[in-house]
């Protein structure tokens, strides 16, 4: 079942690429960037995470994902060049009114944000995302949600990579017109799991689980309606 799902997704991506090429639209690789935010929090945390994740995705899925190598701010002109944003940190987040507006437009216009609580981000993230989407609620995704099964199978939901408060890992989402636009991973610390092995000395099994879950998130963001 798992294998057939993988094949199906790969075929879908290949077919999509062929259609894109035949249609004359430039085949732009899927570019991922890390979000830089204000407020004093360490937006720069986990610097080796994204490069490792992208390398993993390229190696195991043939998806032409590209790490931009850039920290992009919500106010940057090229924000819209990145269909996938990743944000993490331990501390405070503060978006200006303009940034809130830009992020709202970005996300409701097709952008995707994966926010990963690196421990301590939770209150600030919830506060700021509420400013971006005052009309929407963060809802916890059930374990049968596609994001946990679209490539690798996670029957019990998010893997727990790092222990902080003894709470279970949770994945929340914000939907816009039925589409998942923000995925918030809480109490799992996927980003730590993506970092170089020597940074946190996690077992290879844990790192692999984190990278596989990260792959799922990227594939989901690429293929969702």
């Amino acid at each position, binding site marked *: 079942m798992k294998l057939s799902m993988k094949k199906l997704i790969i075929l879908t991506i290949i077919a999509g690429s062929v259609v894109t090429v035949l249609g004359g639209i430039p085949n732009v690789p899927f570019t991922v960037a890390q979000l830089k935010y*204000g*407020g*004093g929090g*360490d937006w*720069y*945390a*986990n*610097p*080796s995470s994204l490069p490792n994740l992208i390398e993993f995705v390229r190696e195991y899925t043939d998806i032409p994902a590209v790490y931009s190598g850039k920290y992009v*701010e919500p*106010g940057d002109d090229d924000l819209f060049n990145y269909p996938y944003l990743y944000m993490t940190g*331990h*501390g405070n987040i*503060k978006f*200006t009114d*303009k940034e809130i507006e830009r992020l709202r437009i970005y996300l409701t216009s097709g952008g995707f944000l994966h926010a990963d609580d*690196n*421990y*301590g981000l939770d209150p600030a993230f919830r506060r700021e995302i509420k400013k971006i989407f005052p*009309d*929407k*609620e*963060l*809802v*916890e*995704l*059930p*374990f*049968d*949600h596609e994001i946990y099964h679209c490539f690798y199978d996670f029957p*019990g*939901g998010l*893997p*727990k*990579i*790092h*222990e*902080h*408060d003894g*709470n*279970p*890992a*949770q994945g929340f*989402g*914000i*939907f*816009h*017109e*039925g589409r998942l636009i923000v995925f918030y991973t809480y109490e*799992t*610390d996927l980003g*730590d799991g993506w*970092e*170089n092995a*020597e*940074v*946190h000395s*996690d*077992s290879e099994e*844990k790192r692999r689980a984190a990278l596989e879950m990260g792959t799922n998130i990227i594939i989901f963001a690429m293929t969702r309606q």
Partner: protein
Amino acid sequence: MSESGKKITDFIGRARRALMLITSVSGAMLTLAVILGLSFLLILLNGLFFLECGARSALFFIWLGISLGALFYWVLWPFINIPRERRVAIDLEREYPELDSRLVSAYDFLKIEPRSYGYSGDLIAASIVDAEKRTRGLKPERIAPFSMLRERSAYLVFAVLLIVGFLASSPSVFHTGIARGSNPFQYIMRPTLTTLKVEPGDAGVTKYKNLEITIAASGKLPEDVTILRAFDGGAERTFSANRNPENDREWSFLFEDVKRDFTYRVEGGDFISRPFKVAVVDRPRVVGLTLTFDYPDYTGLQTVRLEENEGTVDVPYGTYVTVEARFSKKIERSELNFSDSTQKAMQIDDRSATGSFRAIKPGSYRLLAVDNEGLANDDPIEYPIRVRSDEYPTVEITHPGVDIDLTEDMLIPLSVLGEDDYGFSGFQLAFTIEKSPEDTSRIKIPFDSYRRPQVSVEYYWDLGRLAIFPNDIVLYWVEALDNDRVTGPKKAVSRVYSARFPSIDEIIKDVISDREDQITDVEEISRQERDLQEELKELTREMKRASEITYEQREDLREALQTQRELAEQLEKTAEEYQQTTEKVTEQQLASSEIIQKMLEVQKLLQDVATEEMREAMQKLQEALDSMDPEELRRAAEEFQMTQEELLERLDRTLALLKRMQVEQRVEDMKALAEKLKEMENKVSEGLEDGSMSQKDAERMQDRITEGSELLEKGLEELAEMMSEFPDMPSEQAKALANEVNQNSPSKKSGQCSSLMKSGSMNKCAGKAEELSEQFEQIAQKLQQMQEQMQQQLSAETIAAIRRAVFGLLDLSARQENLLGTLAKDIRSRELARGLGKDGADISLALGRVTAEVVSIAQKNMMIPPNIGAILGSSLREMGAMLVELEQGRGYSASPRGYEAMAAMNVAAEKLLETMDMMSSQSSSSCSGGQSFFQKMQGMCDKQGQINQSTIPIAQGQGSSGSMPGGLTPDQQAAASRLAGEQEAVRKSMEELAGEAAQRSDIAGRMDNIVEEMEEVIQDLRHRGADERTLNRQERIMNRMLDVQKSLHRQEYEERRKSRTGENIVRRSPDRLPEDLGERRDLLQQQLLRALNQPYPKEYEGLIKSYFQALRENAPAEGK
């Protein structure tokens, strides 16, 4: 002739002249009256009727004949037919009968020769004289016909009135009559039913311009109007004119891009206009216009060339605008005419022209061109000039954005947000110390986004280099300059914030006070929880006894639930306050990592006092209260009571741990205080010795030390007292230390030192300072020893207690297993079951003792898992249930309960073993090298700061000399070379550090450019000296180093909070996603808000809310 004869002749002559005059005048009047009368008739006829030319001519001749006849008869004839004198004399005789024919006789005598008729000459003379006498006094004019004159005047007046009346009553007929009557011999077109008025009729038009013909119809309305155009007498082409939709009597037609002369006629209804001529004038025309904007430097914008014929100038102030125009023909001259009446000549080249101007004020311009025939371009377009002025920038400090207390590292991470329309030229941090506001200093904040309208700058401000002392307040703000180089940079100033340097004693006092408050809060919550517990017990008992649940009981339960909610909120608040205290302690570096770790764990205990089960029980109770089922309510109340008991247990444990922590923290506080005081004392000594500290500053610092020492003495006394409440703590040792410190009172010594300073005895003071420093060090060491001793003792005690508990539990588990095995042999046997009851009771009793010991040690050591009490409690409950069943002889019911109890014992033993392993591994683990890394980084920051300071004079000297780069004096060259060497040393150290940091990619990542920037600075110093760029680079280096330093500090704190590999926690999947995916509910909310924003009467608002509430409630059921 005699005199009398002459008089008579004269008399008659006068009469004849009067007669002729009056006759002539009255004749003229009559003639005029006749002419006017005839004219009236003529106008009337021509006005009312269209007369052909012949008829009009005939009428004219009639009018003319009668007029001339009248003129002759009444005006000229009287002059021709002059009355004879004798006739006049007769008329006079008739007028005056008293003359008695003497006048006529006398006239006759005067006319005849007397001798011819034989009359006597004398007699004749006498007759003449007599006649003359008779005429005396008479008026000969009386014979004139005055009555006739009056009569004819009346005729004339009548005729005039007739004409005027006609004109007034019907002017159009009058004018038409005049026009036609006055042109009797001209062909006049027969009047049509329709008349068209054509504008402009004959016209001149500039070549390639449009010509609009407008037609207004009067009379009968034609169905349509056509225009017949012909070139050079050629065939006419017909065009339909367009009726004006707003006025059906108007038409228009546009001849576009008229290129050559033509004629046109307009036809509509029965009307055909005469041909009109349109003459085309070939004026110069603008056929192409291109603007180029050279923006001023401050905008950072590239030169822009607009698309052709885009003539509007909308540019920033000071933009240089170049206008290039192409014309339809060769031109003689061209100029730009501005709305302020100024002109600017353009450069001519055959058919094109180029001109330019600088946009400094709004207005408009026109492009004027004149050809060699003197013809100017027609109606040149007026293009607007809009000048956007460079607005003032704004700047704000977004972080910290509030007044703060400085932390131990004396660093303030600043986030500055600047906004300007065209970007910035610089940011500077301005600050002053409140006590000396006249000295304001400024530091350049490096940034590289000059041209961006919104700039976010992060800057680490190191206040460690400032000469500030505890209790000083630094006021700071940020100034931003925009990059307007045309009118000069405009400055924005942020809000002023303050950073206070709190004294160590103040911080410690605050922390101590906070902790005491938190313990008091938890004690109060605990007391209230106990009261609540008693109430609940009583209530559930009553509810069990009675068959019905009364309204009062329900209300009491509701109140209990509310109280529990409030207590839970208070607990959360206390946990938050505790977190803040932990953060404060961490920031001020007042505690070791072990203590901070413990504080975090206590904080978590506080947060977890109200468990998820408790919340669920509260929810169930709430639901049961809302329902009417008494059984459900009883069950919910019991469950709530049980979870409340558990909460109380957790609370007791947390409180006990808090109290122990309070003591441990006090030891830590006092140690930190002693170390800090030592550091301050050393600073005073060194400052006085090397002269880096003024006497006044030294006095202030010493006063702070005195205050800190007082707190130390008092704090140690309190510590001894606090420890006496805990038998396992070294209270005697603490008491001894407190006594020793009191005897050698450092506060007194410090006070003396301060007095000596004030009296100028600096040498004596130096000795005291040294003594004090040593004393502080000894105190810190003793506290350290005390702390280690406490830790070791607690650890050993805990491990021993756990070991005992584990053995006890495993033993009890084995006994339970035996008991259950025996029971299983004949599970139906009531005797066997009852017989095993005693063994079960022994096991239960022993389990109670083990539980008590575990609870006791858990109140001292937070390493014991918080749920261990719950697990053992569950085991005890199951044991109790098993005993009840055994007593009843129901072995088959007792068995599963017994197995549950045994399983819980095993789990508890396992958890305790895990705790023991963890404690052992922690005590053997060594600390990381992070601190030394941090210290190295701190040292390098200091060094870099010194290099930066020393570079400034070189850069200023080089700049002020006005020499070329590199033009340094020998002294400056030597200084630059020395600094390059120092910078090289720091670079190498940084490189080594970066090598060490390679293992820590988070730090290494942020040190990337520091080494490279340092190399650039070294090159500058060696080859070019130092300039603004060098200073900027150095500032960037400093900023990045401080960034790394701050991160290291933060990382250290964070490391304590995290980084244990997580274990997957098996749990149920969250419920399926809500139908609205978190969106729909809010749509309803929005609609509700929108609805309520409408101006509905008040009474409708409630209805609207109810409606939306119903919709919301029904939404999931409907599924859409």
